[in-house]
């Protein structure tokens, strides 16, 4: 297996996540796209680990940290979404344009 096949796959998924982040209107779907990007990062990390084969499995440990932090971030993110929904009765990001001129 070639290293690049995993890296390019990761790049493709990251790009899809970026597209989703910029295009989707529902906040939850934006968070979903962020999760896609983090998954792509994980693929890269584990692929690099298989390439370098460090004695302490550094890439995999890093990937585990990324997963953990992503879980924490989703928790907070959805709590924020909940508050937004309570206040504005809408989960549409276009309705959240308060911080403007």
């Amino acid at each position, binding site marked *: 297996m070639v290293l690049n096949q995993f890296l390019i796959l990761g790049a493709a998924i990251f790009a899809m996540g970026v597209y989703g982040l910029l295009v989707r209107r529902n906040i939850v779907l934006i968070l979903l796209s962020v999760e896609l990007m983090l998954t792509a990062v994980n693929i890269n990390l584990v692929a690099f680990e298989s390439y370098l084969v460090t004695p302490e499995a550094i890439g995999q440990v890093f990937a585990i940290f990324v997963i953990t932090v992503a879980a924490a971030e989703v928790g907070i993110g959805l709590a924020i979404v909940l508050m937004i929904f309570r206040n504005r009765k809408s989960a549409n990001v*276009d309705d959240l344009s308060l911080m403007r*001129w």
Partner: protein
Amino acid sequence: MVNAFYNLAIVAAEEGEHAEVHAGDGGFFGDTAGIMLILPFVAFLLILAFGKRMKNKGGEIAVAALAINLVWASALLYLNATEGVLTDFTFEIANIGSGMVVELGWVLDGLSILMLFLVNFVGLLVFIYALGYMHGDRRVDWFFAAFSLFAGAMLILVAAPNLVQLIIGWEGVGLASYFLIGFYWEDLANVKAGNKAFMVNKLADVGLILGAILVGVALGTWDFGAIDLAAFEGNTELAAVASVGGLLLFIGAMGKSAQFPFHIWLPDAMAGPTPVSALMHAATMVTAGIYLMARLFPLYEYMASDVRTTMIVIGTITLFGVGLLAIVADDIKKVLAYSTVSQLGYMMTALAAGGYTAGLFHLFTHAAFKALLFLCAGSVIHAVHSNNMSDMGGIRKYMPTTFWTWMIGSLALAGIIPFAGFWSKDEILATLSHEGYTTVLWIAIAGAFVTAFYMARATFLTFFGTYKGHGEPHESPRIMTVPLVLLAIPSVLFGILNIPGVSLGNLNNFTVWLGNRVVAMGDHHAEAINWGLAIIGMVAALLGILLGYVLYFRDAETQLERDSFEIPVLFPLLRKKYYIDDLALGIVALFMGPLAKFANWTNTFVFDSVPNAIGGSAKALGGFVYGILDQKGVDGVFNGVSAATDGAGSAVRKWQTGRVQQYAAAFVAGALILVVLFVFVI
């Protein structure tokens, strides 16, 4: 990689017992047996993707998958019969360290090949039947998808080479069962039945998982071949946990195989469509517990013998106590459900008494005739549009094929010669007698009487008398009656497979087929049938039929009048199902109130106090920063600067549209430009 254990198959036969081991590898079919495990899942995905557009809503795909599977299963069955198959294939999916690994794959030995054949054979016929039964119903594509999922999970379970894969399959069939029982979820009662089934099973699964952990950690592996060998050789680490682990695993089996007191979910599970009841809750899923006990038979035989006492007691209570419940049921499917639980009690009792072949032979024959009975019931229900026997009567005239196949199934269940049930039940009685369990033997014979009685009641109430409903029920279409006939044939003929002292030439017989595993189980297999015991059993059954005839054969104004026989204290108790359901609900309700109050208290005073404290201190800090630092110190400087920035700002601030995604787009674009600059240009 072929597990090394399968080269060391041991013949564990005692004096006068008959056991052989042939470690063939099953040729082409053995090597590619994994296809049987994958096809149903492929069918699941295909049905979800394309089912809606197909003429039979994906049923064709489900039937095709099982038909292909049946080719493999039949070939393996034949190979096992003639030359013996004993092989496996595993691949590792997780390495835990210190030599413990988690593997998936399949094992092919006498027991698993028989189960694979059974699941595929009965499954295929039920699927074909379901094509007709579910035609025109709602969500038929999801029905066949969930049904295929079930078939796949069940195959994974029976072909499992170790406890981990067995648990995966176990949970899979539980999930599919939940989907299918609650198939008509528009009706709340069906949803509740599905929940009940799932939760009772989950409760028992605690035992299963704990038992699996105990045995696995003690021995260092979950592989069945290793456990069998360790049990046979008296491995000390395993011996230390064998009793507790064996008991826990038995509790797990109790849940899935509806032994008392975990039987409460099975009658409610009849809320699902009849093909589901026929396949899952009669022939395959409920036999998973029996299968587990059979798989670990060496463990119970050589190490955890004290658990067998518990097993026999529970098996006997189930066999007789739950069998009685069928006498008062009005819903024809409930009669069959209670009957199934009772027969599962027979199987468990047989296994606990040391009758490896007896219990499994009964599982085999029971699958055929119980599925047949359920499908016949479904045929009648389809024609009459009601489950209750009080709406039936005289169906014999309108649905002859259904009637005759039902008769064959009932006679097989009652244990009348020469139908299959006679041979398997007699084998169980012979085992009980040979191992010296006299009390249990008499209870089992009494159970045969009860079985014949309630089947006679069901038959006479449904098929005899006159039909009092409106219109005329008509026979089911061929797509439904052909599987009935095809299932009736094994109900008659399966007995041949295991007549004591008879071997089918090149094909040997059922005992030899089953015995082919790592620790080959010898079994008491008499050289000739014990006619005394057989006649006693048949007399009990005939008495039951006779009593049923006397009480229920006559005609009357209404069906309810025909069903008017009553024993004062017993029948009301039976109607309330011994109050066990109420007991279970009461226990749950007892805990729910205090538990909810405790959770609320914890939430209010423990969890909230931390954010409260943090919020309070944050507030104080904020007050300081605002009052002193900000108002007095910082503002003075900025007031002067702000006038200048105001003018510049009003031009630039048009960029701030407030739309987060535009900010993000700008961010990405900027990052992209910077990266390209740094990587490629500079």
